[in-house]
């Protein structure tokens, strides 16, 4: 079960993702530099787009990476129903590609935010949150553009179709605006596509997979991702 871990020029979380995945039985993560194009994804059964600053975040975060040739391969795998996760800059790339709706705007504070936050996992079961329904997990965020925004229609669809697996909250799981670090609408921290096989999230499960890192809550998300690979 080959998992392609994409690296664009400027991606810098690929080793975190590779290390986290290597702890999971059955996962075979492979680093794929984006310059390999479509050929780089020929063997892939799943994809992770890690965080970082692809192309220096010039233009808009994720915009330049989103038009690379390799993204056509990402699109094909998404259509085939293969599991795909975009973390942080990976989420930004997925929205710029249009695989996920909306856009990640500059944080409300106009600052880069790097801190531990809590996420409320949705009650409904998704491919990536099985066994975690309704729980509160602790993972870090590190971004300047994590302020999720979409049209009112999209917002309604996301809600109605139960496509918001993660929302910012406090330790008790309260979804108050005070616990929204970046200004995202509805405290949105992560969303999935209509098919349910593509997840984009700003927080880093790849930085919370063993207790020594401060939390191992992120591992369950990655385990679900690996289990979903058929």
């Amino acid at each position: 079960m080959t998992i392609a871990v994409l690296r664009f020029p400027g991606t810098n979380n690929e080793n975190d993702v590779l290390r986290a995945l290597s702890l999971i039985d059955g996962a075979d993560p492979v680093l794929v530099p984006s310059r390999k194009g479509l050929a780089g994804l020929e063997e892939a059964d799943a994809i992770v787009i890690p965080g970082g600053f692809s192309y220096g975040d010039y233009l808009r975060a994720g915009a330049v990476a989103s038009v690379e040739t390799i993204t056509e391969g990402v699109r094909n795998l998404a259509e085939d129903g293969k599991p795909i996760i975009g973390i942080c800059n990976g989420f930004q790339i997925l929205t710029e590609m249009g695989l996920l709706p909306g856009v990640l705007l500059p944080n409300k504070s106009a600052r880069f935010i790097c801190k531990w936050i809590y996420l409320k996992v949705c009650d409904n079961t998704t491919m990536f949150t099985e066994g975690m329904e309704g729980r509160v997990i602790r993972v870090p965020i590190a971004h300047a553009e994590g302020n999720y925004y979409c049209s009112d229609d999209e917002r309604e669809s996301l809600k109605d179709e139960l496509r918001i697996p993660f929302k910012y909250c406090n330790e008790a799981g309260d979804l108050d605006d005070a616990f929204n670090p970046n200004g995202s609408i509805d405290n949105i921290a992560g969303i999935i596509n209509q098919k349910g096989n593509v997840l984009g999230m700003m927080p880093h499960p790849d930085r919370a997979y063993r207790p020594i890192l401060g939390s191992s809550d992120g591992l369950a998300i990655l385990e679900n991702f690996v289990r979903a690979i058929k």
Partner: protein
Amino acid sequence: MDLIHEGKVKRVLQDPDSSERVIIEFTDLVTAGDGAKKEEFAGKGAVACDMSEYLFGYLEGKGIDTHYVKKLSANQILCQKVTIIPIEVVCRNIAAGSFCRRYGTEKGTRLSEPLIEFFLKDDAYHDPLITVDAIIRLELAKREDLDFMKSIALSVNYYLGELLKQRNLVLVDFKLEFGRTEKGTIVLADELSPDTFRIWDSSATSMDKDVFREDKGDLVATYLKVFEEMKKAKPQDVEPRTESIQVIVETKSGIKNPPGEVTKKALERLGFADVKDVRMGKVFTIALKKPITSEILNQLAIMNVKLLSNPISENHKVRIE
């Protein structure tokens, strides 16, 4: 053939073979002073036709869209059918004609930069000078159309000027007309001949319709001489005119703009208490390899949506410099 329009010196006929094309027929008439002075010169229509054929071809070769399709006979060219925009676009390098009468400028004064002027194409009012705002208020053309026509006029000025310069001739000024095709694109229309340009030789002797306006010699011989010179020039030696356009990307109103907000706070700290709101956007300056055409403007629209702006949160506009 059905007559579509009878102008002062040209006739526009319907092409019997295609509803999308017209035949422009050049007559031997020459008029000046709004038709007050009028005369016929044998062979003038043919030379104006030949020169239009030659120059439309030259400009097309440089990437400028025109209505010209092909030459049909000694005094007829086949063109795309367009709706003429009722604005004459004049480009001036050296003061002459109505510009001198209007401002008292001495004839022959070189302007520091080419000047574009717009005139309303309406004989009943003697084709008056018209401002950009008046054109927009009268809904004769949109601002972006005028920017586009201005840019094309400057390109024509460059390409024609450089061609003439090779033969020691000076492009003083000229008038262009534009038309809109059925697809909505704007193309250069009308004719390109010494009826519509002023050309001087190195001693500032007129080589154009001023010969007739001022009764200074044999008009047809002058036109033929200019044409002979033009044909001796080498179009391939004229370098492409590089142009720049700007794309301005702004966050849509109603969407928070944190970079603008922190800038506003900093301005307040500096004591600029009157600043109500600041929004920060981006400007892309894009240099093109060839003159701006309708096709390039279409490409820009695609560029904007595909990459330069995110239509979910941003608006974009194109500015032709």
